[in-house]
């Protein structure tokens, strides 16, 4: 039965299986085990970002597309539900409408972008997505009447979701289901074709697969799941704004998560996201003490200043691309024959 749930994509490494189980347990039992609001916040964030990173892995790891517009779809989801809930009665109807609208917009946009990707080289495509994402971010902050501008939108959620635990389990379960759905997709014939396209585009064309169609589909799927992740995050925070969804820093974060975790594995995105979010919250404290201990020395305190945590993750990222192209998951799998 586990095979079916995981769609045949076994962890293939004891350590990895252990890590994943631990992660699942931690997330499932978070409200019960960890006291206080902060751990629950972190856990919810992990759920959302695992999903977001996994949707990005679909593009980067499985289809081989580098897009800098992924946070745009994340934002579309968040804003969709935020706008609906601010203007309508804060009920499930509004959520449904907002989500549907967000998914529709995400689908349309990603379709257009996907069509474009066929004509141009990867580098060209990456640059264009960067420009489009910037444009969207500008729109969001300028159309303040609609989107709340720089301050974003705060809104009420339906009664049931106002209890933190209930909201948490909502986010957790939807993220889990969507993650498993992604697993199913990448392990289906569709997913296999994606992998073959990534490996050798010419050959796939020769074998009759219209790579254009597959890449566009992958693009759309990734965008829709990202939008759904955005919906979840907005419902948890009861807020959507440019800094929680559209910031380029978040795009970089997702990129790091997927690459460090392991591209093209899905589990890599999960591990990467978990490590990243936890580190973001708790590592900074560790760095704070380290930085304090190094006081008086030249430069070193600055290098270990908690705000510089991205420096170390960046270095890890660069090293991963060079030496561990398969990321943490790849390394773990390589060790267990």
């Amino acid at each position, binding site marked *: 039965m586990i095979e079916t749930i995981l769609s045949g994509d076994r962890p293939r490494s004891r350590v990895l299986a252990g890590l994943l189980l631990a992660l699942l347990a931690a997330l499932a039992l978070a409200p019960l085990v960890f006291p206080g609001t902060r751990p629950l916040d972190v856990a919810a964030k992990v759920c959302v970002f695992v999903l977001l990173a996994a949707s990005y892995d679909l593009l980067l790891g499985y289809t081989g597309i580098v897009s800098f517009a992924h946070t745009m779809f994340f934002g579309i989801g968040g804003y969709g539900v935020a706008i609906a809930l601010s203007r309508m009665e804060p009920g499930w109807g509004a959520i449904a409408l907002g989500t549907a609208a967000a998914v529709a917009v995400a689908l349309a946009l990603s379709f257009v972008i996907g069509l474009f990707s066929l004509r141009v080289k990867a580098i060209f495509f990456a640059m264009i997505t960067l420009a489009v994402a910037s444009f969207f971010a500008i729109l969001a902050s*300028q159309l303040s009447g609609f989107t709340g501008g720089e301050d974003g939108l705060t809104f009420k959620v339906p009664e049931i979701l106002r209890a933190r635990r209930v909201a948490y389990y909502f986010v957790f379960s939807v993220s889990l289901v969507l993650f498993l759905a992604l697993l199913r997709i990448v392990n289906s014939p569709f997913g296999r074709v994606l992998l073959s396209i990534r490996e050798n585009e010419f050959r796939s064309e020769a074998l009759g697969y219209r790579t254009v169609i597959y890449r566009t589909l992958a693009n759309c799927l990734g965008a829709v799941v990202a939008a759904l992740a955005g919906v979840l995050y907005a419902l948890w925070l009861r807020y959507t704004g440019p800094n929680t969804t559209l910031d380029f820093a978040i795009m970089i974060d997702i990129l790091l998560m997927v690459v460090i975790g392991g591209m093209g594995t899905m589990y890599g995105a999960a591990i990467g996201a978990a490590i990243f979010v936890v580190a973001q919250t708790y590592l900074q404290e560790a760095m704070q003490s380290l930085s304090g201990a190094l006081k008086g020395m030249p430069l070193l305190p600055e290098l270990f200043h908690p705000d510089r945590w991205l420096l170390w993750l960046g270095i890890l990222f660069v090293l991963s691309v060079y030496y561990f192209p398969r990321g943490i998951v790849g390394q773990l799998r390589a060790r267990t024959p």
Partner: protein
Amino acid sequence: MSRIDWKPLLLALVVLLGALLLVQNPSTWLTLTIAGLAMGLLIFLMASGLTLVFGLMDVMNFAHGLFITTGAYVAASVMRRLAGPAEAESLLANLGAVVPAVLAAMAVAGLLGFFFERVIVRPVYGQHLKQILITTGGMIVAEQLIVAFWGPEQMALERPRALRGAFIVGEMALEKYRLAAVVVGLAVFAAMLVLLNRTRIGLLIRAGVENREMVEAMGYRIRRLFVAVFVAGSALAGLGGALWGMYERNFTVQVGAHMMVLIFIVIIIGGLGSVGGCFAASLLVGLVANYVGYLSPKIALGSNILLMVLVLLWRPQGLYPVGRQ
């Protein structure tokens, strides 16, 4: 450069005249135009290296903004040390501060470029996916290092005394610094044209951008040339960053990253690998940014992206695509 394609220049003319119609006031228009040209030329300095590097070796350095940022920071540090000459009355004395600052900016940026090419870029020649990832990662790391070294606050970079303020001609106020930037920008462009069209190295670069393989098949070690072009492009970006810092008078560590979006737009509009195209596109982008910034500030940032879309619909390969076989 025998036969020049006139159509894109007509586009520039349309933009200029269209703006005149919309702005209506000729002196405002002139101020905006000079600002636009100055900004455009500075963008050209920053973008030219990137487009050549891509055209020549098919390498897209997403960390190019780093050289801009470094140039700005180094220039700021040097200018601070040389506050004396910078604040003096005479232009000559000012140059005693500005020239070292700018040269230092170029040197450090160039050095950084050398290091980057060797360590970050060279291992991933030909692998576009890894290039994008690695250069983006390099950018993150370097940005953090800059903040660790210089601090996270905004940096101030004042213009030298003699170049502050403006010439008053009738109704118009023509900012001295902007005029100076235009002069410097044009001078660099002219120098590049001479290099590319009148020297053997320039010949190799132009041929290499068109068909690198054929140049190698003719016996030239074009990889060595590539390093030189990469370093030169980085140095130019550093120069652009230093001058841009003085243009804006203050900046943060994000300055390079912010310019990158505009630079990408410019090199896409201009045609990847084409210096002439980059020049034309930079001017267009600078002008559009300033005109729209005056007419409708809200859509100013987005207007250039729209411009890019429009140009691509007209000429998908850019305004002056490099003739590839």
